[in-house]
C-alpha cells in the first residue's frame, strides 16, 4: 500500500493529516481509472457505430431504474464479495489463491449435504448449520494446498489450479451419487439435481423490505457479505494475525527474523480464505435454486480475482468493486435489449477496467512515493545533508 508516513518532524510543512494523503491519492486514482476506462470504452462504441451516451445510459438504466433492478445488481454482487474477499485475504500475505473456485464448489457440496441431512435442526438453526458446513467444506479444501505449501514448498498457484479440477469432478460425483435426488419423480428427472432443501435451510429474501420484487433474489447473504468485509478489515487493521500476514506479504525474510512463523500464518490465512470461498455458492444454493443443480453457476471464484484487483484487495473497495461488477454484468442484458452493441462489449469493458485500475494505481503510488521523497529531501536539504541533495537532484531529473 502507500508508503508509510515519514517519521521525521515534517508536520509543520504539511497541513493535511498524514493518513489523508494516501487515501486522497487512492480515491483520485480510482476516479481517474474509471474515467480513462470509460473513454476507451467510448472509443470502441464509436468505432462500432453507436452512441456512447446511449450505451452507458442503457447500462445505468438497467441498474438503477427501480428497486428491483438495483436489487438484482446487489444479488449478482453478493457472491462476488465473498469471492474477492477470499482472494484478498491470501493476497495480503503474498499468497495467490487461484483455488477459490474449487473451494467454493466443495463448499456447495458440504452445504448441500448439511441441508439434506441436518434437517432435524429447528428453524433458522438449519440455515446457520448449512452456512457453517459451507465454510468447513471450503476450509477443508483450502487446507490441502496450504499444508502442501508449508510442508513441501509446492507452489500454491500450481496446486490450487489442479485442485480446481478435482473439485469439479467431486461435485459431479456427489450429484451423481450421495446427493442425487431421491424424490425427484417425473419432470424433475430432466435435470440431475439434489432433493429440494427444507424452507428453513434457505436464506430469507429481504428484497421486499426495500420494495423489490422477490425475483430480485436479494437475501440476508448481502448483509452477511458486508459483515464479512468488515471482519476482514478488522483482521488486517486491528489483529495480530493481520499484522503478521502483512509482514509476511511485504518481506518474508524480515518477518521470520522478527519471530513470525511464516508457515503458521500462511495456513491460517488459507483457512480463512477457504471459509469465505465456501460461502460463494450460497446465493445460488440457498436463494436462487433451493437445491444443488447440475447447471450451477461456475467461474465465480475466478471472477473474484478480478474483483479483488479492482478493489485493490481492500475490503471496502471490494464491496464497491463487486457492486460495480454487478452493474456491468446486468448491462449484458441491457446492451442486447436496448442497443445494437454486442454483449461482449461488457467483457471488454471489464478487462479494460481491471487493466486501467492496476496501472493507474501503480503510477499514482510511485508518484506519491516520489512526492514524499522529494519533500523529505527538501527538508533535509535545509539541514545540509549530502544524501538529501542526491534525492532532490534525482526527483528533479525525473520530473
Amino acid at each position, binding site marked *: 500500500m502507500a508508503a508509510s508516513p515519514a517519521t521525521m518532524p515534517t508536520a509543520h510543512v504539511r497541513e493535511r493529516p498524514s493518513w489523508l494523503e494516501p487515501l486522497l491519492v487512492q480515491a483520485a486514482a480510482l476516479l481517474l481509472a474509471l474515467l480513462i476506462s470509460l473513454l476507451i470504452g467510448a472509443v470502441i462504441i464509436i468505432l462500432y457505430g453507436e452512441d456512447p451516451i446511449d450505451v452507458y445510459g442503457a447500462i445505468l438504466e438497467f441498474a438503477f431504474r427501480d428497486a428491483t433492478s438495483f436489487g438484482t445488481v446487489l444479488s449478482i454482487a453478493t457472491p462476488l464479495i465473498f469471492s474477492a474477499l477470499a482472494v484478498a485475504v491470501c493476497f495480503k500475505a503474498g499468497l495467490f489463491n487461484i483455488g477459490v473456485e474449487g473451494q467454493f464448489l466443495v463448499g456447495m457440496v458440504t452445504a448441500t449435504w448439511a441441508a439434506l441431512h441436518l434437517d432435524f435442526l429447528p428453524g433458522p438453526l438449519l440455515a446457520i448449520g448449512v452456512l457453517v458446513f459451507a465454510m468447513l467444506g471450503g476450509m477443508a479444501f483450502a487446507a490441502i494446498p496450504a499444508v502442501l505449501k508449508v510442508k513441501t514448498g509446492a507452489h500454491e498457484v500450481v496446486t490450487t489450479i489442479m485442485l480446481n479440477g478435482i473439485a469439479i469432478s467431486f461435485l*459431479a460425483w456427489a450429484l451423481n451419487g450421495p446427493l442425487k435426488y431421491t424424490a425427484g419423480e417425473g419432470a424433475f428427472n430432466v*435435470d440431475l439435481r439434489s432433493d429440494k432443501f427444507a424452507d428453513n435451510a434457505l436464506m430469507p429474501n429481504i428484497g421486499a423490505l426495500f420494495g423489490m420484487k422477490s425475483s430480485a433474489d436479494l437475501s440476508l447473504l448481502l448483509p452477511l457479505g458486508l459483515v464479512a468485509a468488515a471482519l476482514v478489515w478488522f483482521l488486517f487493521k486491528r489483529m495480530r494475525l493481520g499484522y503478521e500476514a502483512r509482514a509476511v506479504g511485504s518481506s518474508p525474510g524480515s518477518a521470520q527474523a522478527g519471530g513470525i512463523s511464516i508457515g503458521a500464518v500462511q495456513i491460517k490465512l488459507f483457512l480463512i480464505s477457504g471459509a469465505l470461498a465456501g460461502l460463494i455458492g450460497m446465493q445460488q444454493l440457498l436463494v436462487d435454486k433451493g437445491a444443488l443443480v447440475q447447471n450451477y453457476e461456475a467461474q465465480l471464484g475466478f471472477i473474484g480475482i478480478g474483483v479483488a484487483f479492482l478493489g485493490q484487495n481492500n475490503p471496502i473497495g471490494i464491496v464497491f468493486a463487486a457492486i460495480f461488477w454487478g452493474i456491468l454484468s446486468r448491462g449484458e442484458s441491457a446492451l442486447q435489449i436496448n442497443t445494437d452493441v454486442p454483449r461482449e462489449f461488457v467483457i471488454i469493458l471489464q478487462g479494460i477496467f481491471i487493466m486501467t485500475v492496476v496501472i493507474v494505481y501503480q503510477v499514482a503510488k510511485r508518484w506519491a512515493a516520489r512526492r514524499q521523497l522529494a519533500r523529505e529531501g527538501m527538508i533535509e536539504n535545509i539541514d545540509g545533508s549530502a544524501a538529501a541533495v542526491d534525492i532532490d537532484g534525482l526527483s528533479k531529473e525525473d520530473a
Partner: protein
Amino acid sequence: MPKWLRMFALPIVALSLVAAACGSDEPADGGTATDGGTTAECNADITVGVALDVGGLGDKSFNDAAAAGLDQAIADGLVCEDNTKFVEADNTGSNRDENVQALADEGFNLVVGVGFAFSEGIAGIAADYPDTNFAIVDGFANAVDDTLTNVADLTFKEQEGSFLVGVAAAQYCQCDTIGFLGGQTGPLIGKFEAGYTAGAKAINPDINVLVEYIGDDTTAFVNDVKGEALSTKMYDQGAEIIYHAAGLSGAGLFRAAVEADKPAIGVDSDQYLTAAPEEQPLILTSMLKRVDTAVYNAIKQTGDGNFVTGFQVFGLADEGVGYSQSNTELMTADISDVVDGYAEQIVAGDIVVPEDPAEA
C-alpha cells in the same frame, strides 16, 4: 479461464478487432436479419423476446432451431420483426435468469427461454409478471412450481426421433458397432441415447453401441474440441457411424467423421443443410426436434390470445420430432422405407420407446 482474464491479456487486440469488425454488419444478430419483415403486414399487437442459452445464435443446432421458429412467425406476419428481440446468455450461462427478467421488465408479451436450464429461473420470476406469457423449450418450470398460471413447458419425445435415426444407422451400416456422443450427462440427453440404442437394436439385436459423454455441465454443449476427440476415439474403436446429441460440440463429430471418412448423424435441426461442404456427404440424417414448431405455436397462441400453459409434449404423432432425408446419396429410399415403417408403429403405439438408457 474466465472471460475477463482473456480480455485482460488482449485489450489492444480487442480494440483492433472491434475496429475491424465495425465494417461487418452485426454478425451476432444474424437471426433477425431477414429483410423485408417491415414491409409485410404483421401483427403489431404482440412483442416476443427470446432468451437463448449458451452457444447462442449460430450454433447450427438448438438455439438456431428456436430462432427459425421466430423467423417463420415473422415471415407469416404473426409478429413484426421490430417487436422481437434475441438475448444471448453469457459463456457460462450465469445470466439466464437476468436476461429473462430483463425481457419481462421490458414488457415483452411472450418471453421464450430456449433450454431446460431456464426452468428454475422462470418458475421464480413468472409470478412477478402475471401479464407476460413464458414458454420454455425443454422446460420443467411447472414441476418446480405447480401454481404457475402463465408458463408453458415445451417438451419433446426425443427418444422417438432418436429411435428413428438409430434404425437408420443400423440399417445403413449393417455393422456390429455404432457410437453415441452425448453432451451433458443427465436424463435429458439420456432420452436421446435410449431411443437411439433401442432403434438400432430393433434392426440388429446384437449391435454394440459405444457411448461417450462430453461433460457434467452445460459447457459440454460448446466443447467441440472434446467432441472431436471422443468421436475419433469411437471411430477408432470400430464405430461405423456416430450420432450426437451435444449441441455445438457436435461440430467436432463432423470433423472427426471427415477425418475417419465414416458417416455421422446430426441432431435438433437438419445439419446436412448447414454443414461444411466436405462434411455434408457424410451426414446420413439428423434427428429433428421441432423446436421451431413449438416456438412458432407459442407465438401464434400469444397472438390469438389462447396461450396454453403447463406441460406440452411434442412427439412423433404431433410432428414434434422426426428425421431428415436431405442427403439422398446415403439416405436411400430402401432405408427411409424401413424407418418410416417403424415411425408408423410408434405413432400407432405398437412400439413404446424407452426414455432411460438402462431400458434400451
